[in-house]
């Protein structure tokens, strides 16, 4: 369990953290998601003690660690660019935390072997980091962080330096590892897909503040505001309001569209649009439209729906929102 209360941190006039309070439940895998400069890395580094807060406190498992150096916080930290000890073998890298604690040799050897097996680097003991791929290096860094039995595991954009395929593999692997190890884990990412894929909970940060925190489904289905909605998942603009592209219903019949729309409380209305392009992407079909207001929008429909509509470029369709996000009901300012 990590509790951050009223965290403030400024660099000159730039407010990296502007009063952030967040609870991270024990055993969870929480993603801190936000654009660059949103303060997500600063928050993570403050939990680790690698940054000193200007104000506020950090409590890890009931112990107030504010002002305590990283050495004594019981953390494991994984960096985007691996931060491998280049002059040490894989074994020595992983053993580092145990070696400096002067644990018995046999215990170190057993623990390192066990961890290397968990991270799939068995047999790489005597290699140097330069002889590993990026993904292997990051798994070594994870094993190194886990070796000291940290109370919390902190990952700063851990897959950011890897290519797409390795990244996807590794985050699924991390998810499985977390399910086995159950250490409270905080992961920083700017990639909403990664956050949705791997995390139990997501905190969306923007301009040094937390916009919303919750389960991935809650954030996706019931975003607190436009920022969260547009940052997490795709959006289309319908009469100036944000709707998920798959929540837009297309109809050829004008009267039917208006009748259905009248039944949706607080709906943004119906727009008349011209079909620009119909793209088949396997299971789904993307329809690109230009509205009367000359606004561009993209709509996702199922293949069956697309076949039923039989749309061709140049034709006119009526688009409406199938339902409205809760945000419009909870925050009237959004429902203009």
């Amino acid at each position, binding site marked *: 369990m990590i509790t951050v209360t009223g965290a403030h941190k400024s660099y000159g006039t730039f407010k990296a953290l502007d009063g952030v309070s967040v609870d991270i439940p024990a055993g969870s895998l929480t993603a801190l998601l936000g654009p660059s400069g949103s303060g997500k890395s600063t928050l993570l580094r403050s939990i680790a003690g690698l940054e000193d807060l200007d104000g506020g406190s950090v409590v890890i498992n009931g112990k107030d660690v504010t002002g305590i150096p*990283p050495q004594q916080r019981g*953390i*494991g*930290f994984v960096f985007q660019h691996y*931060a491998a000890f280049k*002059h040490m073998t894989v074994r020595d890298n992983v053993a580092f*935390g145990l070696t400096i604690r002067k644990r018995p040799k046999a215990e170190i050897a057993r623990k390192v072997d066990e961890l290397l097996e968990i991270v799939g680097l068995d047999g790489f003991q005597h290699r*140097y980091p330069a002889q590993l791929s990026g993904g292997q290096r990051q798994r070594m860094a994870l094993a*190194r962080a886990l070796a000291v039995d940290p109370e919390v595991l902190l990952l700063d954009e851990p897959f950011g330096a890897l290519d797409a395929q390795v990244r996807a593999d590794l985050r699924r692997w991390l998810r499985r590892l977390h399910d086995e190890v159950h250490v409270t884990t905080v992961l920083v990412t700017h990639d909403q897909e990664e956050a949705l894929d791997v995390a139990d909970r997501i905190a969306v940060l923007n301009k040094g503040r937390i916009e919303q925190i919750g389960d991935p489904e809650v954030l996706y289905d019931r975003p607190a505001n436009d920022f969260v909605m547009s940052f997490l998942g795709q959006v289309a603009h319908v009469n100036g309001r944000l709707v998920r592209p798959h929540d837009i219903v297309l109809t050829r019949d004008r009267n039917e569209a208006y009748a259905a729309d009248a039944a949706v409380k607080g709906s943004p209305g119906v727009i008349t649009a011209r079909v620009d392009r119909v793209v088949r992407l396997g299971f789904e079909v993307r329809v690109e439209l230009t509205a009367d207001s000359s606004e561009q929008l993209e709509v996702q429909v199922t293949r069956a729906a697309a076949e039923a509509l039989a749309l061709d470029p140049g034709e006119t369709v009526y688009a409406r929102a199938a339902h409205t996000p809760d945000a419009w009901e909870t925050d009237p300012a959004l429902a203009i």
Partner: protein
Amino acid sequence: MTATASAGLAGGTHVSPAEPRPGPDSLVPHHAPPAQRPSRGRPYATGLVTLWLSVVVLLPLAALAVTSTEDGWGGFWSALTAPSALAALRVTVLVSAVVALLNAVMGTLIAWVLVRDDFPGKGLVNVLIDLPFALPTIVASIVLLSLYGPDSPIHVHFNATRYGLVVALAFVTLPFVVRSVQPVLIEADKEVEEAAASLGAGGVTIFRRVILPTLAPAMISGTGLAFARAIGEFGSVVLIGGNIPRHTQVASQYIQQQIEIDQPVNAAVISVALLVIAFATLFLLRIASSRSLRRETAS
């Protein structure tokens, strides 16, 4: 003539002060040059390089070797083992070793302060480091003599002592370690230190187990170059050293003395000895640096 040849030999190995990163033939093991495909100009380039090296380096060295054995191997041996010759070599190596070690510590510290700390006048200090490169060494000798000589304004008299030699050589070799460690420190990944801290390592442990091994190749290389330079140094010690045989007379001064008393063979023999020491130093550096290079960039 031979004296300047041997001084120039050791001096010729130093890193150009202007460039922060040592040249392509540097011993600092950082970026391995990419393998280049042979081009059509290659035979000419190779020929030119061979010619140049022959004229500038190999032929003079060969001539020196020939001169040194003019009196046969027995002559060579007795010139080398003459008590004053041996003493001069011993003083040279001893003082150079002390200076090299001094440099290893102080040079690294200076590089550290220049890279990691911010203070007013940092740019000026950075320029100051290179001054011993730019300054004619005889000027260094005069400067040191006026401060530590018989008329010392601070009443510290190093004139004609081994301390004087150490101070003079430390002055001249100051930039070597600083300039080889500095770029490595600049490029050093601070996250590695943070990673060590997150794993529980305190400041001393981080320095000893993480930073020092990263700096070691550059430190060794800088120290070795400083040593090689110190061995052949002449100008900076000529005034403050005092040239007292078997006490402060260094090898290069002994060589000059032998030339002056018309013993060119003796001079050549000691020159060859200096040459061998310098070459062995550089050779060992090569081995040490290529070993760490292999480890850090192995693929």
